[in-house]
């Protein structure tokens, strides 16, 4: 446990010792603000809730999470420091969890800095804080699932750009396969069971409940399974590389 924390702390400080972290945080905050107020119609709705804020999160994470996580393993592979890391008294799982937690904490910090939204909505009306809380919970889980996918793609290749693009494609697939505009096109020829199957592996189906303020055990299970599965695949890939 302490080893995991050591690795996590080292990785987290690596983020903040380069301009990447600050650029990322500023862009994330600008984009959430833009989408909430300009595209989401926050004021036109006339409701004191943060739905137009949370609705965009999977779409933002689609690009921003791979950008945060793409260097996790590919950098180590490119520089050859992975051999150094794995010959230390560290098990692959400790390294994987440590790196994953560091990036997740970083995303959490970026998300926590959106607190002016909550203040805005609390100043303008009487928002439902339970709902806001569950919205944040869903957002954290979505970023975790996407981050696990990025961990896997970054272990696959020593090229960060390839890792980024692969990860975006996988995340995009998970978003689109339950996104109504896409399912409406497919519905004409695909059998119902196939659409149902795709809807259940879609991120949007499971994220929706959190936005409404309902935490469903199935949604929780889904996000934890996706995260766990891709972290496991990362360990398999790293093991295969070492062999």
């Amino acid at each position, binding site marked *: 446990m302490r080893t995991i924390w050591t690795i996590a702390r080292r990785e987290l400080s690596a983020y903040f010792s380069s301009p990447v972290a600050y650029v990322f945080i500023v862009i994330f905050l600008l984009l959430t603000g833009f989408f909430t107020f300009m595209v989401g119609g926050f004021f036109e709705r006339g409701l004191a809730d943060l739905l137009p804020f949370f609705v965009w999160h999977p779409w933002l994470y689609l690009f921003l999470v791979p950008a945060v996580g793409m260097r996790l393993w590919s950098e180590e592979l490119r520089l050859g420091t992975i051999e150094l890391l794995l010959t230390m008294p560290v098990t692959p799982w400790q390294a994987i969890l440590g790196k994953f937690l560091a990036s997740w904490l970083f995303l959490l910090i970026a998300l926590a800095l959106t607190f002016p939204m909550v203040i805005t909505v609390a100043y303008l009306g009487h928002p439902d804080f339970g709902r806001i809380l569950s919205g944040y919970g869903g957002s954290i889980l979505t970023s975790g699932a996407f981050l696990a996918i990025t961990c896997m793609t970054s272990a696959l290749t020593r090229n960060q750009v390839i890792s980024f693009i692969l990860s975006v494609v996988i995340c995009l697939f998970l978003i689109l396969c339950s996104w109504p505009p896409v399912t409406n096109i497919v519905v004409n020829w695909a059998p119902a069971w196939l659409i149902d199957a795709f809807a259940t592996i879609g991120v949007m189906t499971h994220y929706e409940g959190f936005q409404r303020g*309902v935490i469903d055990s199935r949604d929780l299970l889904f996000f934890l399974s996706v995260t766990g599965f891709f972290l496991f695949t990362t360990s398999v890939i790293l093991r295969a590389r070492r062999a």
Partner: protein
Amino acid sequence: MKTKFESLLYSIVGVVAVLIILVAINLLGGFFKVRSDLTQNKLYTLSDGTKKILNKLDTPVEIRFYFSRDNASVPVPLRTYAQQVEDLLAEYQQYSHGKIKVVKLDPKPDSDAEDSANLDGIEGLSRCRDQLS
């Protein structure tokens, strides 16, 4: 070379096994669902009285829900409201032990859904374009 192949095969088999196990867990999890409603007024939780009535249902009930989803001129607040109604209907369906069936219809002009809406005595609301903005 052979050991490398074997270890790769082993890892792929392992990944597939984990995938199958996780899918199974998720499918099983569907039967033991727990939900916690964090909204202040328990918006998505049915009151005890409603649950009792739903339990006593003995004939199948079909609820037809009409909403012009594909009509781009439907304003955002109405869309939000439609979503809330849909959620509530889903909750009814969940507690009715399969007695309640919710049919979602989009009454586009000249469609069967529109005829069905007319038969049910629902008339389309026309809204001025100026009012929308």
